[in-house]
């Protein structure tokens, strides 16, 4: 009887161990992968993760890709959770790259280094634009550059990526603006419709309906190209201004990134990158994203890492300028 028991236990152990290695060398076979999303359900980051997760499951041959929403503190909670997750290749995550600002200026809460993440890829960029209300006297960039009275800009709360982008652009192009923080979500658009604030700098896709409805128009774009709309780089006259605009551009290009925790074994990072690439090149995913009106402009592994490093490596003068632009308002 005892022999039977020992044999059964041995057999179970053998089967369990072979689970790790059979699977024709595929580590992910029959395993669950967690996909951390640094926001609540709904919204862009969540939508991309759910879409990509579905295809990652197929391409990794994983049992499931589970979306874990860990919202809070302007994507910090999600990023820190991912940074501290067990680096076994079974956890990946997505968060807003606006966190780069916090690292550049050395905020004490930034207890992690973005360079250390294992970058898997990015699904799309989020080109920024300035949208002006049709009730505002400012009609184009020339008006904005020549404004004598401060032009009222709305932005999300202090410390948010939207606020930092706006302050940085204002510094770079020497714009005469009054940035009023606290306009979350679509509050800024409502405020423009009421004729209170004049403009917002934000991700271009979020203004599509507003502009299509005739409530306002785009006057400047950063990190992307739109027919007939000038690019911020064209207005940057000094080297420093170009460096500052370049940071916003890089963040815009990075857009919807996906990363794994530092220290994830190289072979698993490679499997994740390969599956991510296969997913984003899958015609079904592209078709689905198109219906959801989520653009797909992918980049992978090393390229994303280089973008992150290029945004982080700044001269002390530039760092001081960013600090002044972002913290000076406080």
């Amino acid at each position, binding site marked *: 009887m005892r022999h039977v028991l020992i044999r059964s236990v041995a057999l179970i152990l053998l089967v369990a161990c072979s689970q790790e290695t059979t699977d024709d060398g595929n580590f992910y076979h029959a395993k669950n992968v967690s996909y951390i999303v640094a926001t609540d359900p709904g919204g862009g980051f969540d939508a991309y993760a759910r879409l990509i997760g579905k295809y990652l499951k197929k391409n990794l041959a994983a049992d499931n890709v589970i979306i874990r929403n860990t919202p809070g503190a302007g994507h910090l909670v999600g990023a*820190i959770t991912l940074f501290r997750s067990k680096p076994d290749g079974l956890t990946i995550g997505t968060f807003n790259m606006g966190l780069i600002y916090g690292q550049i200026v050395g905020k004490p809460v930034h207890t992690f280094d973005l360079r250390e993440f294992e970058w898997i890829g990015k699904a799309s960029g989020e080109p920024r634009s300035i949208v002006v209300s049709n009730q505002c006297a400012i009609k184009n960039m020339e008006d904005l550059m020549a404004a004598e009275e401060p032009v009222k800009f709305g932005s999300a709360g202090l410390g948010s990526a939207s606020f930092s982008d706006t302050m940085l652009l204002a510094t770079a192009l020497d714009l005469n603006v009054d940035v009023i923080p606290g306009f979350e*979500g*679509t509050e800024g*658009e409502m405020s423009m*419709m009421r004729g209170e604030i004049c403009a917002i700098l934000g991700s271009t896709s979020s203004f599509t309906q507003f502009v299509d409805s005739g409530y306002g128009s785009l006057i400047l774009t950063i990190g992307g190209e739109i027919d007939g709309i000038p690019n911020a780089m064209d207005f940057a006259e000094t080297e420093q201004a170009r460096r500052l605009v370049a940071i916003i551009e890089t963040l815009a290009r990075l857009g919807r990134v996906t990363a794994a925790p530092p220290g994830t074994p190289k072979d698993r990072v490679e499997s994740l990158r390969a599956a991510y690439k296969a997913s984003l090149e899958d015609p079904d995913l592209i078709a689905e994203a198109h219906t959801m009106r989520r653009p797909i402009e992918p980049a992978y592994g090393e390229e994303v890492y280089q973008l992150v490093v290029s945004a982080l490596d700044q001269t002390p003068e530039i760092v001081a300028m960013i600090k002044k632009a972002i913290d000076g308002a406080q």
Partner: protein
Amino acid sequence: MDLSGIFDALLTIVGSPYHMSLLLLAVPIGMFFGAIPGLGGKLGVVLVIPFVFGMDATAGALFLIAMHAVVHTGGSVPSILFGVPGTGPDAATIVDGLPMTRKGEAGRALGAAFGASGFGGVIGGLFILALLPLLRPIVLQFSPAEFFLLALFGITLIAMLSGESLVKGLMVGFFGLMMAFVNLDPQTGTQRYTFDLLFLWDGIDIIAAVLGIFAIPEMIALGAAGGAMARVDKAAASHGRADVMRGIGDVFRHWRLSIRTSLIGAFIGMIPGLGGDAASWICYGHAVQSSKTPERFGKGAVEGVIAPETANNSKEGGSLLPTLFFAVPGSSGMAILLGAFVMLGIQPGPAIALTGMEIVWILIWGLMLANILAVMMFILVAPALGYLSYVRGNLLIPFVLILTFLGAFLAVRAWENMVLLAALGTIGYFLKKYDWPRPPFVIGLILGPIAEDSYHKAMSLWGPAFLLRPGALIMIGLIVLSIGFYVYQQVTNRRKSIWLSEDDH
């Protein structure tokens, strides 16, 4: 307005077994997401979006709107039976719903909640129909200046919700306001009372707060007292279908209140940025304020269930308006719906008035039909639900506590929230034990941030002159009236009691 178009849309739904069966499927799913604390309608919609993906625009949109419309109908059930709000806006229903359960009137309270939800939902739909032509000027009238004063008006309702002691009410209210300051200062980005804990950066979570202040104390009290939630004998109590019908009848008996709170709810829903929590509490405050016998509230007055429940469902109708016609969602739930509509090929925005009115009518009818269906489904199960109030405490408490802690965790997906829940639960227990009013805490916590944020914005936009805007002056008038009415009520009550006591001598 094209009347035949309106009724064609109704026929499209009712005349199609496919559409009707979608409604029948969506309603229980929506109610389920409402009834489990911490899940809520937003998560519900996100989770079903993949299933809706393959449907045509009409069917998909109908399914989503029906599901979203009845979330709060489901949310009222645990509020009434256990004092555990299914969603944030359902917390106001506890104040009188739970005492009704204790008195053995669970059936009637559930009936009133379903009736009120259905009533509010239908009135909310009619409100949209009536207001379509005036939508734009009204919505655009509300700027941060009016938001600030509306929040102040809500805060004056603390006086009405204080019960017997204004001082106690104000103290609890200010405690709630203080808790509202735990976050990152929206103007300076400085951490306030966050003790370097990231999960406090976004403020005290409303779900954890209402679960802590209402649900935990009830469970401790039940454990201490023994017995079941209902404090009366099963034989003497009412939980049959007749009692549920009586509750539904109450909604119509108090039809003036029902209509008023439905309209207030729809109105608040229509203005993006105020949120559902504010709607149900302001309506609860209004019910107390407008009652001839305000002393009955908090002890099981059926109007205290009707007011917040009408508002909860009617605000969904209201918030559909800016979502569809401005593409500016009236609430965070609507923001997700908006995204889903776009995916289905519906293009919200002013152009919808020219090109897509058919889908607008379908959504409005869907909203109303879902509310009516929810009531009918619930009438069937309400007597069984009422029985739950007779489950012995030792069986009920572990179940409800798990639900409560799970709700707090799910709300922000942070374990720290469970610690916060326990801390607030302890405070809530002592408030209950020593008979301090608890609703002012929630009012302070909910309206504090709205007041602060809109004050800063109004000051940056106009300076102190914001108080002189026409809308602001109307709101100031309302606040003065509200305070004046309270003082008048107190003075006449005191005179009456002096007069009565003199009579006794």
